[in-house]
């Protein structure tokens, strides 16, 4: 899964270094340095940055889900956000039935995995070989369906969901940093690392990577390609569930529109990082999260209000696709005529 990034490092020994990647890495390092200096000099800057990183990790998690699905099945799952929202409602429901947060969290992830695999097998497999439009429409239908189901089962009113991290803050050199933000980043980080480890170190993960890279060759060594794709969707659903569960505490209430905006940010992040690059998706998410938060925080409301965040993300998406379609870390080019 992270073979794209690691193999570029290995390329140092076995092949040529991609100059584009070096530029990007330098640019990111520069950005990180800029952020660090800013944080040290201004409390507001530090708070905005941490907040941006926290919400950016949510974007990154959902973006990673999108990339996983795309790499495995070459499909953009437009319903990824709604699926994440659905699993968040499931968690809420479990907690209403007496489960405390973390057991509910774990159970939700398991349910998400099952749901993801089932959806791939029942809905996507039959239309996979058909046109892009067909699959897009199926995921669009799924978007609508899930939204309807959630409204039907739980209604569209506001639900209160207890944040597992409470309302407290750490004091870091005089800067208050909410437990929530740290918690969000830690949970996403751990989830991502676990998924990464699965891909990198297990036989199953190797099989999945092989199935995504060259399904025909993978079948010849005995990999059940169809099952790998289903598992890929399952894992993506898990990452989406993490994104939804970590996004919810940032809102006042749980509502069905929880993930609709986040999906767009996740698209932008995935494209920014390169649709085939998992590392890129995460970095993209963090970048967008921090950038948007800083912009909205510092630029006066009348020029760029918080309402413009989404259109800005759209603009970013558009510009990236026009200028460097393979994203920051991607290798393949978007087909053009």
């Amino acid at each position, binding site marked *: 899964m992270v*073979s*794209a990034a690691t*193999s570029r490092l*290995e*390329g140092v*020994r*076995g*092949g040529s270094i991609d100059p584009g990647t070096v530029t990007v890495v330098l640019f990111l390092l520069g950005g990180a340095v800029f952020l660090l200096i800013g944080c040290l000099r201004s409390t507001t800057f530090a708070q905005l940055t941490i907040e941006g990183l926290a919400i950016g990790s949510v974007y990154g998690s959902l973006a990673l889900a999108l990339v996983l699905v795309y790499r495995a099945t070459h499909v953009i799952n437009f319903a990824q956000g709604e699926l994440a929202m659905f699993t968040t409602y499931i968690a809420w429901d479990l907690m209403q039935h007496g489960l405390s947060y973390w057991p509910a969290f774990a159970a939700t992830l398991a349910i998400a995995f099952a749901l993801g695999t089932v959806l791939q097998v029942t809905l996507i497999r039959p239309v996979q070989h058909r046109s892009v439009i067909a699959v897009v429409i199926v995921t669009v239908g799924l978007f609508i369906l899930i939204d309807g189901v959630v409204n039907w089962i739980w209604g569209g009113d506001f639900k209160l969901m207890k944040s597992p991290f409470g309302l407290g803050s750490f004091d870091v050199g005089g800067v208050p940093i909410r437990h929530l933000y740290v918690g969000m980043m830690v949970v996403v980080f751990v989830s991502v690392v676990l998924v990464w480890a699965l891909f990198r170190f297990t*036989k199953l993960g*190797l*099989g999945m*990577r*092989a199935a995504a*890279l*060259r399904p*025909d*060759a*993978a*079948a*010849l*060594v*005995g*990999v*059940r*390609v169809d099952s790998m794709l289903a598992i890929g969707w399952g894992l993506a659903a898990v990452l989406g569930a993490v994104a939804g569960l970590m996004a919810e505490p940032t809102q006042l209430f749980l509502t069905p529109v929880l993930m609709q905006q986040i999906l767009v940010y996740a698209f932008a992040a995935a494209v920014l990082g390169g649709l085939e690059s998992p590392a890129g998706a995460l970095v993209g998410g963090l970048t967008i999260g921090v950038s948007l938060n800083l912009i909205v925080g510092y630029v006066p409301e009348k020029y760029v209000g918080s309402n413009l965040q989404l259109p800005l993300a759209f603009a970013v998406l558009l510009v990236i696709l026009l200028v460097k379609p393979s994203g920051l870390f991607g290798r393949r080019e978007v087909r053009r005529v």
Partner: protein
Amino acid sequence: MTALLELEDVEARYGPVHVLHGISLAVEEGSVVTVLGPNGAGKTTTLRAISGTVRRSGSIRFGGNALKRLGPDGVARLGIAHVPEGRGTFSELTVWENLRLGGYTRRGSIRPELERVFSYFPFLSERRRQQAGTLSGGEQQMLALARAFVLRPRLLLLDEPSLGLAPVLVAELFRIVRELNEKEGLTVLVVEQNAHLALQAADAGYVLEAGHVVLSGSSEELRADDSVRRSYLGY
């Protein structure tokens, strides 16, 4: 003694185009058999029919049992390793990962096979952490062969291993195939354009033309055959 692999009246087509018109052949256990013929004769399709990569009708028996219509992954699990045209290696994965994939269907440790493979191909051990795509064509072909071996197959299907390789490398490759056959008891069915080298390494062969078997016999018989000499051996 029943052969390890028996094809009887196998037909195959790609959409409306019939490529195999009733192929029958047999591969004895422990032997090296080659399939020769011009381009488009259906040699590759024959291997694909065996590994389940293409739809076919007719009977295929492996180890005495009918080979059901399994997909390629099922066939691999039965112990048939297919090294396709173009090698089927994963250029984005490391050499080591490629080898490990060879053992995908195996339970238990693949250490012994890996060690054997490294003794045949020492360079694979040195370059194990490199991306497979950085290997040369010949090295990738060796990697493909090594990977197939890790599967511990009962039958190895080799598709045009000499394609795109310098003659020296091809000779080396066939030498190793022969060695694997003699030392490890590996049964090999190899499709080849280079009839000369193939017949040297093989015990028996079949000649395919336009989807039919036109000639078969031991490799000595084929080498002595006039039509084979004229069409495929060049003299």
